[in-house]
């Protein structure tokens, strides 16, 4: 699972509960402008299995997301992850060991300053590439595993602690440009772990072509300063349910890319027909070492991997995710079989009358 960034043992779960209680208190203390601005609780609940080298692990996961607007221009939002992983004991021993993981993925406040500028403060997802911000939630990912290069540019934590400016710089019918620029300080806090870094991302989107091209850059500003570069291209042809997404990232010690394509046919009664709910997915990825210093989370040797997935989109926001991957490297080839089911929930924090 690529989603649990800050891990801590079960003994610290109480501390997490206190943090969640504080967040809930803040949310409930706010005054809300309109009937459409009720705080929401969203997220995903999933159960995953992964068979790698003959060993099967089981992992129930919940990723809750809270969002609460305050007034007309402020939003407080937070996402977390809780999971329990059951792994075979190995060495001929029967049964399973299990480990609990809990995490605050981010906790941030957003202030919409102008139509083009939003100020973000707190613990936020680092805006590098597309995977971390857009595709990492379990209710969005097409695959259970993130890309091999997903840790590049994320400063080992995936989150920054500081401030960010972002927004839509230009929005025209034929094109739009958005941006994000951040600065993060170093923090050793267990819940808000981050490295000192700075960087950002800019993207150009062409709505008629359904084409997005973007570039990312950030720099680690502590110990050995390192630069990270990223580029992404997304294409979704008009009037189809075909999506092509790709990303390249280059770090000081390694680089790599992934290309992912998914498709849902509309030819047999639309997307919500029995056939239309099937979603074949394919992802190709490669990583290349520039040196053997271990600091970026990528494989220690050049690696190629092909993922073949078949997802099924059930009614009521439920998704079955299955995939087979073959990974090639000089340390040995291997097969990875993964299955999972995810339910996405989304509802108001409290009941009330709608207008």
């Amino acid at each position, binding site marked *: 699972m690529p989603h649990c960034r800050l891990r801590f043992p079960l003994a610290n779960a109480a501390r997490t509960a206190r943090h969640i209680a504080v967040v809930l208190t803040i949310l409930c203390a706010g005054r809300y402008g*309109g*009937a*459409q*601005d*009720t*705080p*929401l609780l969203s997220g995903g609940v999933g159960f995953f299995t992964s068979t790698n080298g003959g060993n099967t692990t089981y992992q129930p996961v919940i990723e809750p997301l809270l*969002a*609460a*607007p305050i007034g007309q221009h402020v*939003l407080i*939002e937070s996402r977390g992850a809780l999971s329990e992983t059951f792994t075979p004991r190995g060495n001929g021993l029967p049964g399973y060991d299990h480990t609990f993981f809990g995490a605050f993925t981010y906790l941030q406040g*957003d202030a*919409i300053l102008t*139509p083009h500028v*939003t100020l*973000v403060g707190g613990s936020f997802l680092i805006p590098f590439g597309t995977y971390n*911000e*857009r*595709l990492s939630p379990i*209710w*969005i990912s097409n695959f259970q595993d993130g890309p091999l290069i997903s840790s590049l540019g994320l400063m080992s934590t995936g989150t920054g602690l500081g401030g960010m400016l*972002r*927004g*839509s710089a230009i*929005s025209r019918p034929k094109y739009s440009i958005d941006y*994000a620029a951040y600065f993060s300080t170093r923090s050793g806090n267990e819940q808000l772990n981050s490295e000192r870094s700075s960087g950002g991302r800019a*993207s150009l*989107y062409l*709505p008629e072509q*359904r084409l997005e091209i973007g570039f990312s850059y950030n720099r680690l500003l502590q110990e050995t300063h390192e630069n990270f570069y990223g580029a992404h291209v997304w294409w*979704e*042809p008009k*009037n*189809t*349910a*075909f999506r*092509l997404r790709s990303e390249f990232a280059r770090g000081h010690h390694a680089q790599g890319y992934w290309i992912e*394509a998914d*498709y849902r*046919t*509309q*030819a047999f009664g*639309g*997307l*919500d027909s029995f056939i239309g709910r099937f979603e*074949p997915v*394919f992802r*190709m990825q490669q990583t290349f070492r520039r040196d053997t210093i271990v600091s970026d989370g990528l494989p220690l040797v050049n690696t*190629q991997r*092909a993922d073949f997935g078949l997802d099924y989109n059930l*009614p009521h926001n439920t998704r079955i995710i299955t995939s087979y991957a*073959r990974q*090639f490297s000089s340390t040995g080839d291997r097969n990875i079989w993964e299955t999972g089911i995810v339910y*996405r929930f*989304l*509802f*108001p924090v409290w009941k009330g009358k*709608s*207008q």
Partner: protein
Amino acid sequence: MNVKYLLSGFVIVAAACGFSKAAPQPKTQPTSATQTAAHSNGKQTAASQGSVHGDEGQRIFEQNCSRCHNAPDGFSPRISGTVLRHMRVRASLSQHDEQELLRFMNP
């Protein structure tokens, strides 16, 4: 071996492109987006009523939201403003896009 997998991938992508061109979506085909709005308030959607705002909102939905995720099956209209403020930040939507999507979800 690797070349085989690469070729297989390209064949899948090429087949998907060809299939999608051969079967364009009928204009009357309801999308998940319109169904979302319909589920959320039990009324006809603005898009199905042919309103300008509904069409614009649906276009913006298809161009932005569905690039990352499927439309939720339905949710309370009381949180539509919160959803859009969250997505305005996450997806860097413009103020215009946010307002049109809000009208689309609450026709």
